[in-house]
């Protein structure tokens, strides 16, 4: 299939990559999700994904016990270090497990496991990184999330010169090349923005795919860590410490 790749202006022939289920790692950073984590993992397993890695980022509730019931690979941070650090631990684990593709998604159930397949299909086409993007025109997505994300997109573009439609989405897919090349420093939500920097720095081929998001009552009740204030903190941190 002849197709133009985003991120560089060359036409290339994309060769479809052959992958077995075991070469695809589904990575879940988890922190205090004991109420939903079991059902979230079951729903991923129902879609046929066998190799699932959960990184328990120092949960203080029963998350670890719930994870053990699911039979997935579990890694555990002894204390909470932030979502970015949990994803990075997972990416390091992917190297050890020799995974060819890594798909990251949030562990609170907001992402639809049915979308994993289309993310993997995109990687098979030859992209190094696929960013899952939320369709903010949909009514069920809170307006403040859409606004916060738009501000994040503007700053991401200002810092790294790359416009992405959802700089804060946790639903992403990486091939082995991207996993090997990406180097991040930030432990928290700045991590998502850092990935965009790494795409630019390493000239990775990237694409975007619209994903389904479900904001449940459970999700809304949780402390919103991606509020406007945390977005400002994130920007300051990225400016100060890179």
């Amino acid at each position, binding site marked *: 299939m002849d197709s133009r790749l985003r991120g560089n202006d060359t036409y290339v022939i994309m060769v479809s990559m052959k992958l077995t289920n075991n070469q695809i790692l589904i990575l879940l950073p988890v922190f205090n999700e004991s109420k939903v984590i079991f059902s979230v993992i079951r729903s991923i397993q129902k879609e046929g994904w066998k190799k699932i890695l959960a990184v328990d980022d120092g949960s203080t509730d029963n998350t670890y016990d719930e994870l053990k019931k699911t039979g997935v690979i*579990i890694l555990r*941070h002894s*204390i909470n270090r932030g979502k970015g650090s949990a994803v990075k631990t997972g990416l390091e684990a992917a190297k*050890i497990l020799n995974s060819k593709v890594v798909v990251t998604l949030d562990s609170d159930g907001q992402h639809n496991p049915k979308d994993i397949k289309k993310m993997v299909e995109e990687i098979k086409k030859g992209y190094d990184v696929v960013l899952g993007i939320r369709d903010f025109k949909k009514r069920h997505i809170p307006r403040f999330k859409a606004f916060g994300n738009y501000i994040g997109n503007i700053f991401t573009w200002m810092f790294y010169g790359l416009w992405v439609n959802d700089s804060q989405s946790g639903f992403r897919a990486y091939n082995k090349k991207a996993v090997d090349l990406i180097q991040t*420093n930030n432990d928290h939500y700045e991590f998502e923005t850092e990935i965009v920097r790494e795409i630019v720095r390493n000239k990775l081929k990237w694409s975007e795919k619209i994903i389904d998001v479900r904001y449940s009552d459970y999700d809304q009740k949780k402390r919103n860590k991606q509020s406007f204030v945390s977005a400002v903190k994130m920007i300051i941190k990225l400016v*100060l410490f890179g």
Partner: protein
Amino acid sequence: MSITFLSILLLLFTFYLIGERIVRFIRKEQNQSVFKLVATIFIWGGISYIALFPIHNSNTLIFFGFIVVFFILFRLLSILEKNERLLTEIIRKEALKDLK
């Protein structure tokens, strides 16, 4: 402009710090950001300017006070950030041991 031994010493010291930061930035050493470079040039450049053209009034002292406080704060934040990252690395290594 009144050049004294102390102002020459201060100038050499500021040139060393600015030069070192520029070299580290050019080498793209980790944790080197444009902000750090600009802040270093601004702060130490300002100090060297005052060393060359001293102004003897309270505003200058207040200005210096702000610079010093800002610099200390920035250093503390940098050290804190570095320690946070080191801690994360230790936690990560421990977590990955389960896999090896």
